[in-house]
């Protein structure tokens, strides 16, 4: 009995000591404005179906492609080359990298991962095989060779961003889609430590391949269920970082503390989508006149109080993608009088009451502008757009819908006009145009169109997209891009309204090394992305 008691005491003491030893010192805390689900670290599950550290802290991809400027940062891959015909991509993988369980990483794991996507097509959420990957082989421990059935250089960001998993573990898993992978083994800078509905913790990987990094001992994610609650935690200093959208980041966050910073780089636009399957929106002249009638500068000012600017009417983000804009491409100018004349000239006359008539001579109906219910920024935009269109004799009505009807309406083509963001994006404007106007992303009205919301296709655009995709020569790509931009700006299937930003907010009380406009090493993206991994690697305790 005496022995047993001593043993228990020793055991208890040992447990307390280990519990204390486990408390990490420099903890970087991230606050989440949403909840998360069960303990699932499956890197193949799309988006936020898996827990947050999966793609940012635990697993790694071959490269990180910064969507702001297209800059490629080597991760598990150290270098890549396209063959002359742009059909073979050779990637050199990093030697000396260890998985969290101590075994060695090699190009064979990468080859296995890509072949795994072929074996289980449901995992291939960026459709790498469907878009022409023909084979994935490791020719030795550090060389991965991917061959494609057609020239396809634009697939690179998807290949680069695929999370790589260890062959030894995943080859044993027979139903990878429902696998929750509760004890993840990756190559990333952190290893999984603790999970609960309130907080997640990962600890520094002492064997990480970057010597001396990460500088912090742990990352903790804390969950709240709204932007307001998350912002409160940031303001109280309970969190160091939060990806939290706000109406006014300057007054709402930055001015409330000397160490409060935000970096909201522009990574896309908000658009007024025209449903080109409906008359009179099927008439490019009508759409162009409408686009000219809307004062986008005023839209941006009213909706974002100066925090966001009017978009360039090409849809190209001028800041970082300006090199893709053909020289001298001016944004469409706001000109109410010109719009008025253009409408009349296109066959839409006004009656005595100033109401615009259709080509058949009957008064045009009141058009609906679809927005999300309660989304104040979009509602304000719709109000300004409606006011401007009223001036040229068109009546509109704001149509607020809950999320599922809103997205469903946009995708099934039941709307007249709708305000939404760009459905697609990437390091060059190609990705946005491809997903917005590619025929394979469209569908007949009533069926779900994945992302071609305007349901606009044009053979000239489709051909130029293929040209862009099949070359790695920047000059040739620029030529194709010029065709796309010229065609789209003539046909105006959408009207780019305002800039759209990422929402990185951080406090420099305890850490430095955050990405900024001067040092944009990531794109200010959310806390569970490959871009966030770069932040977790670069933040340093003060």
């Amino acid at each position, binding site marked *: 009995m005496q022995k047993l008691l001593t043993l228990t005491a020793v055991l208890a003491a040992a447990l307390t000591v280990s519990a204390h030893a486990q408390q990490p010192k420099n903890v970087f805390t991230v606050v989440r404005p949403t909840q998360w689900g069960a303990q699932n670290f499956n890197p193949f599950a*799309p988006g936020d*179906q898996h827990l947050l550290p999966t793609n940012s802290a635990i697993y790694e991809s071959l490269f990180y492609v910064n969507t702001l400027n297209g800059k490629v940062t080597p991760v598990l891959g150290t270098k890549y080359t396209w063959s002359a015909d742009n059909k073979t991509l050779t990637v050199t993988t990093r030697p000396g990298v260890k998985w969290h369980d101590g075994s060695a990483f090699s190009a064979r794991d990468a080859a296995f991962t890509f072949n795994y996507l072929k074996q289980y097509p449901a995992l291939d959420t960026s*459709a790498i095989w469907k878009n022409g990957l023909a084979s994935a082989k490791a020719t030795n421990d550090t060389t991965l060779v991917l061959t494609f059935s057609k020239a396809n250089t634009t697939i690179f960001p998807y290949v680069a961003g695929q999370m790589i998993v260890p062959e030894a573990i995943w080859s044993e898993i027979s139903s990878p889609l429902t696998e929750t992978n509760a004890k993840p083994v990756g190559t990333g800078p952190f290893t999984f430590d603790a999970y609960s*509905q*309130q*907080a997640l913790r990962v600890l520094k990987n002492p064997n990480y391949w970057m010597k001396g990094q990460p500088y912090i001992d742990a990352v903790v994610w804390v969950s709240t269920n709204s932007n307001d609650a998350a912002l409160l935690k940031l303001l109280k200093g*309970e969190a160091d970082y939060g990806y939290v959208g706000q109406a006014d980041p300057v007054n709402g966050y930055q001015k409330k503390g000397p160490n409060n910073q935000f970096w909201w780089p522009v990574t896309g636009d908000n658009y007024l989508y025209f449903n080109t399957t409906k008359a009179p929106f099927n008439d490019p002249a009508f759409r162009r006149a409408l686009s000219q009638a809307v004062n986008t500068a005023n839209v941006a000012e009213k909706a974002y109080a100066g925090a966001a600017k009017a978009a360039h009417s090409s849809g190209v983000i001028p800041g970082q993608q300006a090199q893709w804009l053909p020289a001298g491409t001016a944004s469409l100018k706001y000109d109410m009088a010109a719009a008025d004349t253009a409408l009349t000239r296109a066959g839409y006359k006004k009656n005595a009451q100033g109401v615009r008539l259709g080509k058949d001579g009957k008064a045009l109906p009141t058009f609906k502008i679809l927005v999300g219910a309660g989304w104040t920024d979009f509602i304000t935009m719709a109000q300004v757009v409606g006011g401007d269109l009223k001036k040229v004799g068109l009546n509109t009505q704001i149509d607020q819908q809950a999320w599922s009807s809103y997205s469903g309406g946009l995708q099934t083509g039941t709307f007249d006009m709708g305000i939404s963001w760009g459905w*697609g994006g990437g390091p060059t404007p190609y990705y946005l145009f491809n997903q917005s106007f590619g025929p394979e992303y469209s569908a007949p009205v009533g069926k779900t169109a994945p992302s071609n919301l305007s349901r606009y296709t044009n053979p000239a655009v489709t051909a130029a997209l293929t040209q862009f995709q099949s070359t790695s020569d920047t000059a040739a790509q620029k030529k194709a891009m010029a065709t796309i931009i010229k065609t789209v700006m003539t046909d105006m299937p959408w009207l780019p309204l305002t800039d759209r930003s990422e929402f990185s907010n951080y406090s420099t009380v305890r850490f430095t090394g955050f990405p900024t406009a001067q040092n944009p090493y990531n794109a200010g993206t959310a806390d569970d992305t490959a871009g966030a991994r770069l932040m977790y690697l670069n933040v340093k305790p003060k």
Partner: protein
Amino acid sequence: MPYLLRKFLFLLLTLWVAVTLNFVLPRLVPGDPIGAMLAKYQGKLDPSAVDALTVAYGLNDQGSLFTQYVTYLGNMLRGDFGRSIGQFPTPVVDIVAQAAPWTIGLVGICTVLAFFLGSALGLYSAWRRGGRLADALPPIALFLNSMPYFWFALLLLYLLAFRTGTFPLSGNLDPFLTQFSAEWWKSLVRHAALPALTLVVTAAGGWLITMRNNVMGVMGEDYVAFARAKGLSEGRLLNRYVLRNALLPSFTAFGMALGFVVGGSILTETVFSYPGLGLQLYNAVTTLDYPLMQAIFLFIALAVLVANFFVDALYAVLDPRVRDGKAG
């Protein structure tokens, strides 16, 4: 047929109707979960993944409506609610099992507490009518009861959590504590304090008014006057004659309240980010997570029915007329 058996058969019948409605309703709701998910990724998820995901989520063609219904009933009986869509691939049962104790613990205890506290104060207020405190209680109760719950919760959150930092802003526990340690319990109580306070304060007022009215009604009855005239002691009068009869109407309402613990928890749990069933239901609705929605709805229906069954049973104990089948 004996009273309780009749009530039990009725419970089964209602449960079947609830289960069937649960099957039909989501199929009438517009929108499709995969489309909504695709939209959420703003074009970052490739459309060709959609077909694969549809199969994986079990949302592809599953045969005729009747076959689906039979399969659904069979699964239900085996306790298989499918996999969550919003938290794929976690089985729905796991999510419910994880969330239910928090809701039942917090809202359940608070509902009971509010009932007893409110009823006791109501009894006091009626019994000691004319006293300063007793007369002050009803207006206060009316005020607290009519206060918008959401507003009161946010006010408490702002004053006691944000400004003073006395209580945590959200959640149910501090992270990374050893389960059931002293620290853990302390954290649990600290986190539950504000949501519990809002729940009890706003609910107790209602019970107070109800109980006060009941007691006053009973006190006006002839048998009370008769008992008093016979010279029964105040204590005996209160316990045997007044309390028992005044409690009966409240009990029905209490049964309903107990049943609605889960449904009524949505507001509390969203304001305080308390990870119970209400919050899960809220999330399920926003992500069109049908399997999870169905399971929680069924849970609510079951709770309401079972609570009512127990109230009926209790009624039989309290009211002899019911037991004998002469009334009710």
